[in-house]
């Protein structure tokens, strides 16, 4: 029976544990689940929203046309309003490496006396492992929409006390009430980005090859892909026309994508997420990349290399572009939740966000910092215009959605096969 996740007074019907066999049986199971999702969406009309799509109903799967209001549990309530930030030595942040400007961290330390300490991860899977480790305590974390439900239902996040987040009004209107977290109860936006291919325009002769640049033997040994199961397999699907649905639960499509990735192994593919640095310093000539990486690359240029030598390819048709956003949330384990709120509110401040963007290259979805503003500000050079994201791109672009554990694990297992040397 379907449940309405928006009603908080009723205990949601989800099984706290799902049997491993279910997951191992993933294939058919997931295909059935995913088959249902678009069907339900297509039926439409259910304005109460958030019909749990997917097979096992452990958590609702949000989609732009099926938004989800995440529940607030009795034992996981927002903190009280009107408190002073905790006086502590450190604010513990779980985040990608090099994803926040050192200057922003220093300013925060000056203001509140707490040093911002970052524990890095390479992908959400690693983030989930670290945040759910017994005894782990973090104050701030940066998950994307594709893990929001799981983290809330797994009680890894705490709901915001909205009264501390006065700067949320600076955000793009669509991010003040996003489809994956109606009412922004658990998340505010951090950055928006597309996924494409970063390359060295002084070396790559034909960037119109697009994703297939990565499979071009000319760049063997100088080429890498993102250390992220969804991004890597999704790109293989798009590059070789396996499917346009990068959220597919079809085992054959996932397997076909894996086979394509396996072809990169003899070409000496590397799997990492430091392309902002390694494209700039020449270690790589072609690397799957997020748009922000190419903007940030100007801080890592080797001698004799300029931003003119960098290129960022995304499909010409905006409808074919993979687009996404990262959020800022407060883990339930946070020892300093008031300070964490203050930190998040700072990151939504126009001036601080601009300073942060100047360093990390990832666009914050704040109304004031729109494309024109950033280009006029000289943050993005002429040849990297393709790295700019505008709100309209989200309407048509391809997005990663939250999956059932079964489908999620199919992607992770396929990626692991590839990383283990291919089979």
């Amino acid at each position, binding site marked *: 029976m379907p449940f309405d996740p928006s009603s908080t007074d009723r205990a949601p019907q989800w099984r706290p544990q799902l049997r491993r066999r279910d997951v191992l049986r993933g294939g058919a199971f997931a295909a059935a689940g995913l088959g249902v999702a678009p069907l339900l969406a297509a039926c439409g009309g259910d304005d109460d929203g958030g019909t749990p799509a997917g097979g096992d109903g452990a958590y609702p799967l949000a989609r732009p046309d099926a938004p989800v209001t995440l529940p607030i549990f009795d034992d996981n309530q927002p903190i009280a309003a009107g408190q002073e930030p905790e006086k502590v030595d450190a604010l513990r942040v779980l985040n990608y490496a090099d994803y926040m400007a050192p200057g922003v961290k220093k300013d925060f330390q000056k203001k509140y006396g707490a040093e911002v300490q970052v524990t890095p991860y390479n992908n959400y899977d690693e983030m989930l492992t670290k945040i759910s480790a017994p005894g782990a305590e973090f104050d701030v974390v940066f998950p994307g929409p594709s893990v929001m439900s799981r983290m809330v239902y797994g009680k890894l996040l705490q709901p915001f006390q909205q009264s501390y987040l006065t700067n949320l009004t600076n955000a793009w209107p669509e991010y003040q009430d996003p489809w994956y977290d109606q009412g922004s109860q658990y998340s505010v936006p951090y950055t928006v980005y597309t996924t494409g291919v970063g390359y060295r325009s002084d070396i790559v002769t034909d960037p119109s090859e697009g994703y297939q640049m990565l499979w071009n033997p000319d760049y063997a040994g100088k080429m890498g892909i993102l250390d992220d199961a969804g991004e890597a397999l999704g790109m293989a699907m798009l590059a070789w026309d396996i499917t346009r649905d990068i959220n597919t639960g079809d085992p054959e499509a996932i397997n076909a994508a894996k086979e394509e990735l396996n072809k990169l*192994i003899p070409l000496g593919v590397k799997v990492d997420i430091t392309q902002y640095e390694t494209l700039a310093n020449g270690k790589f000539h072609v690397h799957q990349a997020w748009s922000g990486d190419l903007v940030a690359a100007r801080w890592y240029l080797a001698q004799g290399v300029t931003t003119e030598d960098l290129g960022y390819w995304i499909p010409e048709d905006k409808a074919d572009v993979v687009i996404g956003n990262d959020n800022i949330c407060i883990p339930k384990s946070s020892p300093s939740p008031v300070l964490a709120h203050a930190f998040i509110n700072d990151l939504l401040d126009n001036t601080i966000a601009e300073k942060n963007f100047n360093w990390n290259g990832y666009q914050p979805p704040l109304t004031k910092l729109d494309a024109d503003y950033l280009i006029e500000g000289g943050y993005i050079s002429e040849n990297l215009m393709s790295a700019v994201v505008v709100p309209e791109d989200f309407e048509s672009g391809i997005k990663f959605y939250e999956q059932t554990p079964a489908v999620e694990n199919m992607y992770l297992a396929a990626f*692991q096969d590839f990383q*283990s040397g291919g089979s």
Partner: protein
Amino acid sequence: MAVAEATKGGQKDAATRFLWPALAIPGTAWLLALFVLPFYGIMAVAFSSQLDILGQPIPAWNPLEWDFAVMRGVIDQSINGSYRSAWEHTFIYAAIAMALCVLIGYPVAYYVARLARGNRGLLLALILAPWWINYLTRMLSWVGILGDEGYANDIIGFFGFAKVDWLGGQWYVVVIALVYGYLPFFIVPLYAYLDRIDQHLIEASRDLGANTFRTFFRVTLPQSRIGLITAMVITALPMFGDYYTNTLVSNSPTTVMIGNSIEGTIQSGFSRGQGASLVLLLSAVLLFFMAYYLILTLRASREAR
């Protein structure tokens, strides 16, 4: 003090009865807390059949609930699947690295133990010097040497050769890094054994007309056999589990070793069960080598008696 008084009081038996086991307590506690318990934890994860909401295995602490489906899958994948190449790489790289260790390490140990005389202290210090430097730092120095713009490419570039992509997933670079990293661990125990060989045996061999080579192969080498095997075991065990050396100098699926597979699966929550199973498998493989080594040394010490 207390012991001395107890002996004086004529309670020697009681004192020793409690003293010796008491001395074993710290070691036993250490072993229990930091080996047995974690190892049981690994088994509980490997044999778990329940997943939490994030798809991560919930440890099955009760052996009655153990489920071996994941383990079976991992064995399957190891024999004929995605882990096969990792196992192959591990065995091949470790074997080649071991052979190189013997070729490089034995002469060095031999020289220091038997021929160095006055310089021995200095040479030993030089061999041990790398231990004063963090392993990670030593490995990172290879990244500097073998990088695209590193010294190695500078040198071969000077002679007009094309640049080599050393760090682009070359198996021989992984082997070289392994040898470099573990060579001191190989030389020092071997040196200790070679140093202990009775000089008179060698002199006797020469007196009886054997030449240098014959003496070496008939006397020195057999006498140092256990030392050689000890040195090989000491270096082989960490090589089998090593992943970071590989990550630093290659980080490519072309050279993935079993340590890398384990690291990957442990860092990824969903496959922690597989990672735990791989750890158990690797332990079983190493236990096999360990057992062989123990039998050899046991036999040798019995012969010596």
